[in-house]
């Protein structure tokens, strides 16, 4: 229980935003084939893989997976391993047939997880003793932590494919993603260079630098991030001053706070001092899906497409 002291609150909040940015998620709908069917690859079990949390050994193909990561849930379904997932954490709301439960990924409880008698647990972050508790219960667990590059995403999809016996689908998924990213990059072409953007995490102007995963993904298009000026200020998630945003006058305002904070182009236009910004006047305010933006799953390519389209729409006016 924390005392309601502002200093403590401030630090908590800073930590919270960092965690929020990598682990956040809430509710969503969209398209991507939901998983099903039996494994296509003749995988050899027992199997040992090198994961972020060390060597993980599986005696047999997992058929009772508990996913404690919304991103992992999306990946598992995308590679056809959805049928093997028996439970997913409370934020795993995509795809629609994911077996969402009340399990909390923020405060994971090993006993509650064990209740589903899993033969594999996938998690993205271990805020305490999740791994050691699962070790004691002899439940194999694999960590797929927040990605920092698109390559991390591909590696995680391939690794989940390997352990679930869906290597072929995983490889196909990765190459589909790669070609989608490449096609957006090609479409945008040189229009991306010289286009500046402000990426908004919440309505108090927390943003991301290019050092973060989403910053790196947008960097693929050659865009320039106005928050990079504040790199020294924090670990990739600085809170920007309104004055600075107005002065920087970015070509694009990317709202990753449409769900958390109910922001949209109309509300942005009404903010004090924002009405004359180029992005506001030229339709450069892009309403993203918070969940897609904060995960590092297969839908990241769709988000890139959405931003790519906006860059192209802006291109004539931004020279």
């Amino acid at each position, binding site marked *: *229980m924390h005392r309601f002291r*502002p200093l403590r609150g401030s630090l908590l909040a800073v930590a919270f935003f960092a965690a929020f940015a990598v682990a956040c998620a809430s509710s969503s709908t969209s398209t991507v084939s939901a998983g099903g069917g039996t494994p296509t690859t003749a995988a050899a079990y027992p199997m040992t893989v090198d994961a972020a949390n060390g060597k993980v050994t599986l005696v047999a193909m997992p058929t009772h997976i508990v996913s404690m990561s919304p991103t992992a849930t999306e990946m598992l379904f995308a590679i056809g391993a959805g049928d093997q997932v028996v439970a997913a954490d409370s934020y795993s709301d995509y795809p629609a047939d994911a077996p969402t439960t009340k399990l909390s990924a923020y405060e994971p409880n090993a006993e509650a997880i064990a209740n589903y008698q899993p033969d594999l647990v996938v998690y993205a972050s271990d805020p305490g003793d999740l791994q050691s508790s699962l070790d004691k219960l002899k439940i194999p667990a694999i960590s797929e932590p927040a990605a920092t590059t698109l390559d991390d995403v591909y590696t995680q999809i391939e690794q989940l494919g390997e352990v679930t016996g869906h290597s072929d689908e995983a490889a196909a998924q990765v190459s589909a993603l790669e070609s989608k990213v490449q096609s957006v990059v090609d479409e945008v072409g040189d229009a991306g260079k010289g286009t500046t953007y402000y990426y908004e995490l919440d309505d108090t102007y927390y943003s991301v630098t290019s050092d973060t995963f989403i910053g790196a993904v947008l960097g693929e298009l050659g865009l320039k991030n106005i928050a990079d000026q504040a790199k020294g200020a924090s670990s990739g998630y600085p809170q920007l001053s309104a*004055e600075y945003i107005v002065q920087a006058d970015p070509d694009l305002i990317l709202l990753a706070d449409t769900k958390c904070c109910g922001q949209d182009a109309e509300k942005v236009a009404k903010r004090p001092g924002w009405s004359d910004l180029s992005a506001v006047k030229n339709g450069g305010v892009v309403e993203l899906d918070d969940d897609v933006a904060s995960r590092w799953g297969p839908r990241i390519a769709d988000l890139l497409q959405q931003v790519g389209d906006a860059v192209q729409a802006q291109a004539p006016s931004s020279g």
Partner: protein
Amino acid sequence: MKHASRLEGTHLVGGPSRPSAARARRRAARWTLIGLVTLFVAVVIGLFAGAVRISPLGIIGWMLGGGSLTEQQKAIVAELRLPRVLLAGLVGAALSVSGCAYQAAFRNPLADPYLLGSAAGAGLGATIVIVLGVADAPLALPAAAFLGALGGVGLAYAMASTKAAGRTSTSLLLGGVAVASFLTALQTYVQQRNTDDLRAVYAFILGRLGTSGWHEVWLALPWVALACAVLLASRRLLEVLSLGDLEAASLGAHVARDRAIVVIAASLATAAAVAVAGLIGFVGLIVPHAVRMATGASNRLVVGLSILFGAAFLILCDVLARTVVAPGELPIGVITALIGAPFFALVLRRSGGAR
């Protein structure tokens, strides 16, 4: 500040005896002048400093109706910087004057909006409103913060004023700590039960000075002005109350009624500040003490000076919050604590612990 002029006319006739009423009056005038100048300087610095460099001459020119500012610079100064400076001033004044009032009314040097549970109450009220999803309704947030603030102080006071508790200032302190812990626990519980709103609650606690505009200024101004006016008008009362209940009663004060007026006004100021700026610690505790120690003045003068110096202090803290890591922002609560605590230690040393 608009009430500053009232202070200059302060008459010390009828108060407890002084070595020299004329000398005291001169001292009051001198400190009021220093307070006004400090506040003016703080406002000027606040207007000139920011994440974006804008020529001070340009700003002065713009204020005089001409000038060479671009449209963008005008928007930054007029719609972002000016309201933010004014709001910081209002919040600083509100927190300081309420701290001063609580300290006098409860005769406790440690009394401040945090210790007495009023800030925790305001936080709980605001959290409930956010969780219920009605935070956007007009006045819902300030009203809930006000009720929470009043409830917090009321509980602490009720706890401490039972016969068994002995009605001492120590029991008030203990009551306040217990109430603050309880309300914070409730607030945490409500917040954890609604993790989807966690972000909104944190954003609220951290304050919205960084995203504020004229809307917030107009929201806070009437309540802060009202509370300041009531407390300024009650400054003789505060001095009497600070003597102790028996002494106050012997001087003809209606102790319970007078204290209630002061506490309600102080809670109103706290709630208005919390509603627009979140929870900003240290200001309510240190500003009145610093003023008291630096000036050696009685509560009568400290009320007004707390308004002036509290406003100046928070404006300057906010300048640091928006320039130190520019173009990033620092939470202002970090600044008030980092600057406030050592500054307080300095004042404490220099005054030789006279209080």
